[in-house]
């Protein structure tokens, strides 16, 4: 039970949580946060793979990829927030529509 295993499991659970939140959160702001959680979960899994063998030094390639991924995720979040802001100020609904009954 090395840290690598723990964090890869946590990353998997976090990814599922983010995916579920993306679908089942009603408010768009929380959908954006859910996408970030899913991304962070994926990053955890990738970096945990870089530490699979504790004797070796950490593998720098996954860490560089995750570094890139964090920056790209922030850019995507910024664009999503701008779109969200336009939604609100144009007085469009900010929650997913109700599922029709029956």
């Amino acid at each position: 039970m090395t840290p690598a295993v723990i964090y890869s499991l946590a990353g998997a659970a976090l990814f599922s949580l983010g995916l579920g939140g993306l679908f089942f959160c009603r408010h768009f702001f929380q959908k954006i946060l859910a996408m970030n959680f899913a991304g962070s979960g994926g990053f955890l899994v990738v970096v945990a793979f870089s530490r699979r063998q504790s004797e070796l030094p950490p593998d720098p390639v996954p860490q560089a990829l995750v570094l890139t991924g964090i920056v790209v995720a922030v850019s995507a979040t910024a664009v999503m927030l701008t779109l969200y802001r336009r939604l609100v100020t144009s007085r469009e609904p900010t929650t997913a529509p109700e599922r029709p009954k029956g």
Partner: protein
Amino acid sequence: MNDGFIWLDVSLAIGLLIVALYTLLTSDLFQAAVLFLVFGLLMAIGWCRLQAVDVAIAEAAIGAGLTGALLFNTLATTRTYAGSSSTKDDAGLQIFSFLGLGFVLFTVIGFTLMATAIMPVATSALPSGITIGDTQAESGVSNRVTAVLLNYRAYDTLLEVAVMLTAVWAAMPLRRLVVSVQPQPIGPMHGTFLRLILPTVVLVAAYILWTGSKTPGGAFQAAALLSAAGVLLIVSGVLPPSIARKRWRIVLVFGTMLFAIVAVEGLLVGRQFLQYRQGVAGASILLIETALTLSIATTLIFLFSYTSPKEIEDDAVDSFSPTDATALTEPTS
């Protein structure tokens, strides 16, 4: 790293999941934003436990800090603080959703277990068997992550900065035009704080950029610090929120252009694409990193300013027509 701190990893992992769950289930958006910030900082500790210090610095600065600033700014702009809790009304959908989520969880965790337990460990080796350790001295830097980012996988970094530019281009048409904004007077304490902290931030950013070749650090972390300084200036009212002036756009593209020029320059002289000249790899990397720092900091500041709350009133938007364009102007440089 099987030391006695396994309890820290377990509690940190559980804490991450609890914070994430709380963020998605709360009905207060401000609370969600704060919890996201907390989540980012916990992730930074997790990265340190996985010995990914470069990633930890970047996560704390960009993932937690700048994203948190973006979230709070957006909340202040939209002034909507009440989220809605998950569906309470449709039991069938809830059951289906939990089953589906459970299935995804099962698949992802199963794959992860397989990958960690069964599959053989691969080191980062080229098909010819050369590993990073063999060619470390040639790469020009001794920080392996920087070497991967700007030498072995420089193409990914080049595309990444292009993606950031694309994000600015995507967000730019969605910004709001600004009527003349009066610069606010700054109190004595606030002014002293700014005068003390801003040079420090610039100095620390320059140091992190410089030391990125030997110790954890590099261009992205330094850019995050500089963007924090820019955010501080915007929030203090020193810089007008619509900072996206035409002159600054040159700085925006400067880093990517320089990177692309260095990448192509090798082709003209007979080397490969993105192959640095023998012996000056370290200097090339530092040059590219400096330009990238300025560019990425500007990009992050632009992206922050597009969520800024100091914009025109909502009523004015409804009555805005193209013929009124003269009333709303780009701020003069």
